[in-house]
């Protein structure tokens, strides 16, 4: 390269990143100022894919299963409901407060799987309690029922009365004041113990310990004693993964509103955004015929949903990128798929960083980023486990194939075929054992895995198993970092809303691309040269 061209390219390299960052900021500013874009609108729209899986085994006998189903409420929206009922008949049961799904059949023989799926959007609501409302205020008929004592909430029991007195509860003071005392007692005055069964208010008080149900019932008992209507709420705490546990909290009727309190997780007059209400009152979340070996669990996945609601408010404009994304639906590119594509340039930031600045060796240049995409479907821990399993299986297969003395490409094709079969086998096992994340291994990028197995085997042959394992480990580190970047919902929101971020990332790549200093591991490699006097 001639000196003048070298100089010209140096100037260009100095100017280009600045230019890219300028253009990106200008576009972003325009969108914020004139199109009303804001990050808040995007980051709020988190949702969960809820799946409720039920398994049973009938013996030519009648079967009936009923579960409480979520419904639309101020804090929650339920969409895209679907029911899987095998050969059982499904029907809804509704009353004023609750909605249930019922599966029944006059005779079931053998195993059945039932399920309910829905998309859930929830939000946090905080209530401000009017401090002038007293417990003596008039209660409407609809709420009066929730003043009565029952077998679980013994509000008329003398011990509860004594407790109310010792806490200095008073119907002359505001509901706000009394609620705070009741809440503090249940939250901080009682020990939390995880019970599997149901415990009533009085027992909880006598033991001075309770789980979520007991704490909520003692709050309800004290409230009812004072004349504040109170009811239990049953629900699910939303978090990704599989679980069985449901949760109970309590609501007080205060000035025409049912105000939520959770003494277990410390929410006063507030329902957090990860609470899903399933039912009200002292009822069972799930009921089923006995002796059918009944099992159930929830499977929840967090998602970021389209901001279509916000979209409609935006003006039509070529820079209105959210509208453009919406048109992608016509060619079946969903927002979920778009996210994978658009996060790739950001995800490889980890690859570039670890290769050129840290100096880690990995299998293939972009292989770690592609493996990270596979992790999206399985989650990180299942993903790493599956990666290890597939590498182990592939290595064994390759040793066997080596003995057959086949040509390179057909041998790779056989390796690919066996990896595909192995993954589908893992999926079948995962589904039957109920490890759904694990089962999604069928969506792993098989060709990438096959090539990784091939690289692993070649490195094992050339420089030993330890070196191969070391590089496999480093590949996983880079893949996990790449995964962390690509699955960050915050970054996803930014990049989807402001795709010009990619220009900024390109500017970073230019900067790193001109970095001529040591890779960090070279400080070890050349340590003797560095300390030489």
């Amino acid at each position: 390269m001639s000196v003048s061209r070298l100089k010209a390219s140096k100037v260009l390299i100095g100017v280009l990143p600045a230019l890219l960052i300028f253009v990106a900021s200008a576009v972003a500013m325009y969108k914020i100022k004139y199109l009303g874009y804001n990050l808040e609108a995007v980051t709020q729209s988190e949702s969960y894919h809820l799946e409720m899986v039920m398994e049973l085994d009938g013996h030519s006998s009648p079967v009936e299963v009923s579960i409480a189903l979520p419904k639309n409420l101020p804090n929650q929206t339920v969409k895209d409901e679907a029911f899987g009922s095998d050969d059982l008949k499904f029907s809804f049961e509704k009353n004023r407060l609750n909605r249930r799904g019922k599966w029944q059949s006059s005779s079931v023989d053998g195993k059945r799987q039932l399920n309910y799926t829905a998309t859930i959007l929830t939000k946090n609501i905080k209530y401000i309690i009017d401090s002038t409302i007293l417990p003596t205020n008039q209660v409407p008929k609809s709420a009066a029922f929730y003043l009565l004592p029952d077998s679980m909430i013994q509000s008329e029991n003398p011990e509860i009365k004594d407790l109310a007195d010792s806490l200095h509860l008073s119907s002359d003071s505001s509901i706000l004041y009394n609620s705070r005392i009741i809440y503090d007692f249940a939250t901080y005055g009682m020990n939390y113990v995880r019970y599997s069964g149901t415990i009533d208010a009085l027992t909880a008080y006598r033991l001075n310990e309770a789980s979520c149900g007991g704490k909520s019932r003692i709050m309800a008992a004290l409230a009812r004693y004072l004349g504040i209507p109170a009811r239990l709420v049953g629900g699910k705490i939303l978090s990704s993964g599989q679980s069985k546990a449901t949760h109970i909290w309590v609501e007080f009727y205060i000035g025409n509103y049912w105000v939520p309190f959770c003494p277990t997780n410390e929410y006063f007059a507030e329902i957090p955004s990860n609470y899903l209400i399933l039912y009200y009152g002292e009822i069972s979340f799930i009921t089923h015929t006995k002796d059918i070996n009944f099992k159930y669990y929830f499977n929840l996945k967090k998602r970021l949903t389209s901001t279509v609601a916000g979209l409609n408010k935006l003006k039509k404009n070529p820079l209105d990128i959210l509208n453009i994304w919406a048109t992608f639906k016509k060619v079946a590119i969903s927002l979920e798929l778009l996210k994978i594509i658009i996060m790739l340039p950001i995800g490889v930031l980890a690859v570039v960083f670890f290769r050129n600045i840290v100096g880690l060796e990995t299998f293939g240049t972009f292989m770690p980023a592609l493996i990270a995409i596979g992790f999206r479907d399985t989650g990180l821990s299942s993903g790493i486990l599956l990666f290890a399993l597939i590498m182990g299986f592939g290595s064994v297969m390759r040793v066997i194939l080596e003995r057959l003395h086949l040509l390179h490409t057909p041998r790779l094709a056989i390796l690919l075929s066996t990896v595909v079969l192995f993954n589908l086998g893992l999926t079948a096992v995962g589904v039957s054992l109920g490890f759904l994340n694990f089962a999604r291994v069928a969506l792993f990028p098989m060709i990438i895995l096959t090539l990784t197995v091939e690289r692993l085997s070649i490195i094992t042959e050339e420089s030993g198993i330890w070196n191969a394992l070391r590089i496999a480990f480093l590949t996983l580190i880079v893949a996990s970092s790449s995964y962390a970047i690509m699955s960050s919902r915050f970054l996803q929101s930014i990049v989807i809303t402001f795709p010009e971020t990619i220009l900024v990332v390109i500017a970073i790549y230019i900067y790193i691309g001109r970095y001529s200093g040591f890779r960090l591991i070279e400080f070890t490699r050349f340590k003797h040269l560095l300390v030489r006097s």
Partner: protein
Amino acid sequence: MAFLDIFKMLPSRKGIVGINKRNLDLIYTHNKRTYFPNVDNKLLCKKILQEHNIPVPKTLYVVDSPKVLKGWENELSSLDNFVIKPNRGFGGNGIKLIKRVEDTFYSSGEEISKDDITFHLQQIYNGAFSIDNTSDTAYFEETITNHPELSQFTLEGQDGITDIRIIYQDNIPVMAMLRAPTEESDGKANLHQGGIGIGIDLQTSMTTNGCHKNNFITHHPDNKIELKGHEVPFFQDMLEFGARISDIVNLGYIGVDFVCDVAHGAMVLEVNARPGLNIQLANQDGLGTKIQ
């Protein structure tokens, strides 16, 4: 640029070149992509060098079509020693040294059948060892017999060959080292496989201390001979041949690998357009102090 400059300060003061600097300031600026095939294609490289009267090991037989896969059996029937190489290989992969004792072939001390050799040729032909996994040519080359001065660096009964790597920038020799195999490297002189590197003083042709992996050494790890103070035979020939190669292959920054055959003297084994950086450890000095 401030943040990453922290990692640049110490190495650049000591003149040590890292991979990033080698790629950016040496390879990309001195070597044009168009001319890489001149050295990556070893048969082509040998042909060009021969045309310019630079000695290279003799090519015995070339497999460039499936029809001639088995031809070596007749063609080489009178030879007992030869090397099989992939034409566009990298990092020493796919190279096999073959020795015949009576009618049995041996490779790395193990018996190998004629069919195994033909299969290996087929593997090379199918691209299993080529730099881009595309179809490749396999060739047979005469075996080098180490000059006695150099064979003291190899172990008794080992097939391995000692070679000399000289780095040139624009026809000027910058740094040189002698590479010798060890027990650990299984006869290969490649440093990343456990071979040792011994610095060579360009002025005096004498060896200095060396390196094994990332450590400085003064004695051979296997036979314990002192590394320092051996004169490299035909070193002036090598310096002279090498200084013409940059212009011949059109690449400004190259590493030339020489061997020193007992019968033919200095010969060029191959030319490398992306020479490694361990030569700095072998010479206990940074490349940055030698190059402009």
